[in-house]
């Protein structure tokens, strides 16, 4: 699979290495949901910087991952969405508000630290 999922402390870091097929997307979703519980992770970072395109299927799947992880007790942050990808994504008419994003891995981990400490507001 072209996604590497590594554990770092309380977080899982999923780095997508190349464009994913639909089945790989579903596999990623399944595996993350699984491992969040198994490894008692409190946060997930999904690095999508390698993706030149995020179609509505993948966007929907990302949203599903975020919501699923939340039900399993973990917060998800997406990292590395490219400008063109961001423009395309907001045109899907998909409610992306559950998706939290950060510019890079450092920012994502800092954001997760704050969110999982439980003292952060849940803003836009």
């Amino acid at each position, binding site marked *: 699979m072209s996604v590497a999922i590594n554990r770092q402390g309380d977080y899982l870091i999923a780095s997508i290495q190349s464009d994913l097929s639909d089945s790989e997307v579903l596999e990623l979703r399944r595996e993350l949901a699984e491992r969040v519980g198994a490894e008692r992770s409190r946060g997930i970072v999904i690095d999508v910087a390698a993706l030149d395109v995020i179609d509505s299927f993948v966007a929907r799947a990302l949203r599903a991952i975020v919501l699923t992880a939340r039900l399993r007790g973990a917060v998800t942050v997406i990292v590395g*969405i490219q*400008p063109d990808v961001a*423009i395309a994504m907001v045109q899907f008419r998909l409610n992306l508000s559950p998706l939290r*994003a950060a510019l890079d891995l450092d920012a994502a981990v800092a954001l997760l630290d*704050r969110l999982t400490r439980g003292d952060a*507001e849940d803003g*836009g």
Partner: protein
Amino acid sequence: MDQEADRAAAEEESEQRTDEQPGGRSEDREGDDALLQELVAYLREHRTELREEWARRISEAELLGVMSDEEIFSEATEVYDNYMDALETGSIENLQTYARELSERIIPRGVETHEVLGIVLLLRDALARSLFARYQQDRDRLNRILDSYEPAANRIAVTVGVSFVEERERVIHEQQEAMRELSTPVLQLRDRLLILPIIGVLDSARARQLTEQLLGAIRDKRATVVVIDITGVATIDRTVANNLVQTVEASRLMGARTILTGLSSEIAQTLVDLDVDLGMMKTVGDLQGGIEEAERLAGYRSAGAGDPAGDAAT
């Protein structure tokens, strides 16, 4: 017998200008070159009157209205000489260079594409007419002369036309770039904090441009907070309002928070009437307040701000 038949066939082929038979071809090529030289010599000899004839046709056709007669005549002379060189050598490089320079000179003066194509075609026609006149008596020769003249002349016309259009496109492209950068400056106020002041009419094309520019700047400057100030925008419509919402959302997907400032009462009312989903938007009354809020979000302490770290968490 066979040999004779071969030769006859070769001659026939040569006349038909099919280039399959090597012997016929080289003879033919020589003939072409000689004809072309004769042609060029003739046209050079009659340079003065043909050039005048051409200039006359240009003013008759009311082309190049923005240029004076003297200017037309002096450019015409240069075009003529370059034309001859191109005909003679078959190389269009010099002509290309000249055509580019010419285009650089005349484009700012408002010369149109149809005018440039028009004058080149007029020259082609004027020269063709003179060839008709010269070789009237000898039809066969006229045909062969035209055979070498026409492709060369057409190539020249294409070269000049294409050079002009390319130059024009280059100018348009440059201007677009300049306009783009002028119309949507993305300013860095502090480390990781950008300001985007928008002034003037915000239409959907510009809004799109603005989005691209902002997202690029977020990535390049590693911004976490952006203030978009629309004090200078008089009205916006539904499309643009939705574009703004999308811009804010797209910035968020890149990890930056956006604060919208300077909404006029008209725009505020429009947004509410249009039922634009403003849930994701953080708005502050004026730019000053927006910057203060942004500094707070980005973790800079400013007057009255609480703990910046806690609030920067989205």
